């Protein structure tokens, strides 16, 4: 063993992990710190920031200056944030409603066929999300795949106006992140001991009770993981809101993107990003707590 290697086991472990610390530091931590610092500076109208400290970006989230230069409450951005939560929550719920039965169905298949189905679930990841979201414009749009036959057969005589609505955004988000719900639920259902279902039905549980009393409680780790994996990217999503919401119905993600691109207010974009980040961290802390409680409750085995 060479002399320059650390002596202690902890030191060696650190050395072994050093490349990944390096990558995470360069590509994640430093950009995040830059973003955090920018959020406390003043915007440069031509893009970038002026090196002058300011809390203006954070104040702007809830307040604005009126004509007399007085600070007044403006719920505009808060409404967008609230809507983002609503839509993300709705999309997560839809993902759960569609994703759970899919995951359960796959679990019930013979082993050799399960991998094939999982492979099918992951196929959408092969194509760019932007292109896949464009496809939804063709499906939902005026005279699109859904409307055209209904119009032609006279079932409807005007456009359903499905595009550029909250519904369209929710559908787009659900579609985008459904695999992220299916996979963790499948992972926890796959470990489910199916003899427990026999035991439950032997003890007079009907099909519904088998689901609610045994299958769902035992797949809770997967359900929680899936919900977090869907909810977090939904909050920050901007492709679906921009394309399917028409850019008028903004969400937090599209608002951030807008600040860096068209509005040239980097500090405000940074402040919104920090807000988003803190929500994510709070969600993850909640998840870690829940996981720890569960582990404590079910013993170490």
């Amino acid at each position, binding site marked *: 063993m060479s002399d320059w290697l650390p002596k202690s086991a902890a030191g060696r472990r650190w050395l072994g992990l050093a490349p990944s610390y390096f990558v995470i530091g360069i590509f994640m931590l430093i950009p995040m710190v830059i973003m955090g610092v920018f959020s406390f500076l003043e915007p440069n109208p031509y893009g970038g920031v002026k090196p002058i400290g300011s809390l203006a970006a954070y104040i702007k989230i809830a307040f604005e200056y009126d004509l007399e230069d007085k600070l007044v409450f403006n719920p505009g951005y808060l409404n967008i944030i609230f809507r983002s939560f609503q839509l993300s929550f709705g999309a997560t719920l839809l993902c759960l409603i569609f994703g759970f039965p899919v995951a359960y169905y796959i679990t019930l298949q013979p082993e050799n066929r399960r991998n094939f189905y999982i492979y099918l679930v992951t196929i959408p990841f092969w194509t760019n999300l932007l292109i896949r979201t464009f496809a939804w414009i063709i499906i939902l749009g005026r005279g699109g795949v859904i409307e055209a036959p209904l119009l032609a057969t006279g079932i409807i005589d005007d456009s359903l106006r499905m595009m550029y609505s909250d519904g369209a955004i929710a559908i787009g988000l659900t579609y985008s992140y459904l695999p992220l719900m299916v996979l963790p639920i499948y992972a926890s259902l796959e470990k489910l001991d199916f*003899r427990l279902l026999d*035991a439950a*039905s*032997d*003890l*007079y*549980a*009907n099909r519904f009770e088998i689901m609610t009393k045994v299958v769902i409680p035992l797949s809770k780790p997967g359900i929680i993981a899936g919900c977090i994996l869907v909810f977090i990217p939904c909050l920050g999503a901007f492709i679906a809101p921009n394309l399917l919401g028409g850019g008028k119905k903004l969400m937090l993600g599209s608002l951030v993107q807008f600040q860096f691109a068209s509005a040239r207010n980097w500090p405000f974009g940074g402040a919104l990003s920090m807000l988003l980040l803190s929500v994510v961290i709070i969600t993850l802390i909640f998840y870690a707590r829940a996981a720890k409680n569960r582990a404590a409750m*079910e*013993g170490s085995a």
Partner: protein
Amino acid sequence: MTTAVDIRGVTKIYSPDSNQAVKALDNVSLTINDNEFFTLLGPSGCGKTTLLRLIAGFEQVSGGEIMLFDEEIENLEPNRRPVNTVFQHYALFPHMTIANNVAFGLERLKKPKPEIKATVERVLTLVKMKELGDRRPNQLSGGQQQRVALARALAPSPKVLLLDEPLSALDLKLRQAMREELKQLQRETGITFVFVTHDQEEALAMSDRIAVMSNGEIQQIGKPTDIYEHPVNRFVADFIGDTNFLDGEIVDLNDDLLTCRIGAQSLFETENSGHHKVGDQVTLFLRPEKIMLSVLDQENDSGNRPGKVKNLVYLGNQAAYTVDMGDGIELTAQARPREDGELPFAIGDPIAVSFSARALKVLAQ
């Protein structure tokens, strides 16, 4: 006597439409009486667990009928059958406490809360687990989980309790203790027990009646002593206990005795049951414990056969001897150690072997 379970010509074929169809049960008929400890005994793959799962309702019969107290049940879902199962690996719900596990069946039956509480306490006391109601399954040892599984299945007071090799995962001492407890529990509760096992000792120790199964068919049904002393065929004789088999031909008979030739010239006498004639090829069987071994005394040879100790296996309370009788015949016999603990015979010793004609039995082919 009331019939608890009536199995009528039940056949079970797995994946019948594919080319891998497996016939797990072939036209099986048997009746299990109320308040009986009935054991399905057989090697793995004999169909005993399949039969249990058919009674529980986890599988559907391919043919035949299953009646439970004169009621057809083969079309009922498991949750509509008044039977409960103790599973081989317990299948306790890991996300529930012991008390909630035991209460599960009662809650599904929509029993009133105070009654559920009282019943849970009563059955947990019955299996000596009252103190551990707040624990979770993975905090218990295998033996404790076994008791909880038993309590959970007993709590709804099933008409029939199905037990699928419940003791197989326990160590020897615990298994023996649980045998007695199970038997006692069955007597106390008066519930019909249908017990599946591949362990013949377990079956003999606990059962009122045993059905020996092999290849999806019932070989013999009877009391433990019937099965052990009067096996109907070679499979049953071989599966239950240790046995010597002697293949030979009947060469002479009178009203009382058959004389069989085994090997080239050894003659053995056995009781004449009246079913055989001279020239029949037969298999004789002889339990090792029915054979007396003694020191060979050439002078005073009265019906004793000479042999030579070929091998011995020391088992503590006894030793199993393999005796070479000459003429290609080997017998397994048992002998107790002497009071000073020494074994009476050693390998290579000449020895005298004796057994009565009644101990030697003719097996049906």
